[in-house]
């Protein structure tokens, strides 16, 4: 095939042909069966390319990646900032204590909820009696009991984060990503609380709220570590 216009068919398909040439090509196409056939085939090639599916690798590559970057490929693992950055990491003792206490409480609540027996058909959720029963007399009891301590820990960490922001140790891009993340998480917490208010017996919603609150605390804790805190 050696038609002068054939070379321009891809540009025609992509819409990058100048108006005058496009009009001339269209006039040519009206009378050239070979070019129309080629044009149709090229369009099918483009459509086929766009329809290609992405496939994951045959073998899981994560274990090898995890080994290379120094994290566990199994259980939850957080690389210490000291391993990744030379930046000094400092927490105040109250910050660490508050974060640890709230994480422990949230973790206990989550574990309890995970271990709860499923709702009995035709009845409400039945709380399992045990060591944590005092936290779950009300389905949201443990969340309520941790709320004030959670708020205090969040406030403490946000204060540390704000200091890092004000001191310029956190650049604007980092602040933007963190702020966006916190807004997202706060929105999720609000939604979870609303849903829980409508369905206070839902183990799923309790678990979801606990996870989301824990996630916010975790993010704040790590964000605070990016900037030196008061000592």
């Amino acid at each position, binding site marked *: 095939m050696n038609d002068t216009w054939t070379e321009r068919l891809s540009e025609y398909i992509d819409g990058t042909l100048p108006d005058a040439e496009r009009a001339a090509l269209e006039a040519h196409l009206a009378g050239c069966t070979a070019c129309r056939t080629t044009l149709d085939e090229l369009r099918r090639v483009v459509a086929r390319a766009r329809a290609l599916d992405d496939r994951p*690798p045959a073998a899981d590559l994560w274990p090898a990646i995890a080994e290379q970057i120094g994290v566990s490929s199994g259980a939850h693992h957080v690389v210490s900032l000291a391993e*990744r950055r030379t930046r000094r990491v400092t927490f105040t003792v109250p910050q660490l204590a508050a974060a640890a206490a709230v994480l422990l409480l949230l973790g206990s609540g989550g574990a309890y909820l995970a271990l709860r027996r499923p709702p009995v058909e035709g009845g409400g959720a039945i709380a399992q009696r045990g060591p944590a029963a005092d936290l779950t007399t009300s389905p949201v009891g443990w969340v309520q009991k941790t709320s004030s301590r959670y708020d205090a820990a969040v406030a403490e960490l946000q204060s540390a984060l704000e200091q890092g922001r004000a001191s310029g140790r956190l650049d604007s891009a980092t602040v933007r990503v963190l702020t966006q993340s916190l807004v997202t998480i706060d929105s999720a917490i609000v939604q979870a609380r609303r849903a829980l208010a409508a369905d206070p017996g839902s183990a799923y919603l309790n678990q979801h709220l606990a996870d989301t609150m824990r996630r916010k605390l975790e993010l704040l804790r790590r964000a605070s570590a990016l900037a030196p805190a008061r000592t």
Partner: protein
Amino acid sequence: MELTSPGAATLRRDPDQATGGGGTGDAETADVALAASGDGRAFERLYRSHVARVHSLARRMINPDVADDVTQDVFVRAWSKLGTFRGEAAFGTWLHRLAINVILARRTTLGTERGRYYDAENVLDAVPGRPVVHELSLDFQQAIGRLPDGAREVFVLHDVEGYKHEEIADMLGIVPGTSKSQLHHARMALRKYLE
């Protein structure tokens, strides 16, 4: 090569666009922030979300035999570069551009510069050192793999990944006219492999 953001609006296959920027994208933003602070589990979630796209890109752009290795390299580099992620583009777009940079660098390392830009319709016949396979036995994906490097890279970046000629020219160090020409020859060659 500087890691810049491609014209995100031009990417047809941007997974972040596919999710509509809804809940999945929000969760991913949080994972990026967590991973940047050293959370391996958050980074694993990012890996699970994007590995198929990165691996497919490597498989098509360079060589199926080294796709695993290249994909690992991409994610190892992403982990070390997460601190430079500005949030100006979606994480998937940033990762995708990083993957392209890694692939192009690997291509040079492997010395796959042979016959980069063929100016002929039957480019599949012009590739030296590739096994002779009965053409009709090739499927479309295999045929892409047999294109000369230049035509294959342009075809994958333009028709599969949705980049513009100007962006491709910048990535590959060629002029947009060469990108257009290579794309046309790749398409012409691949017509024979439509199922």
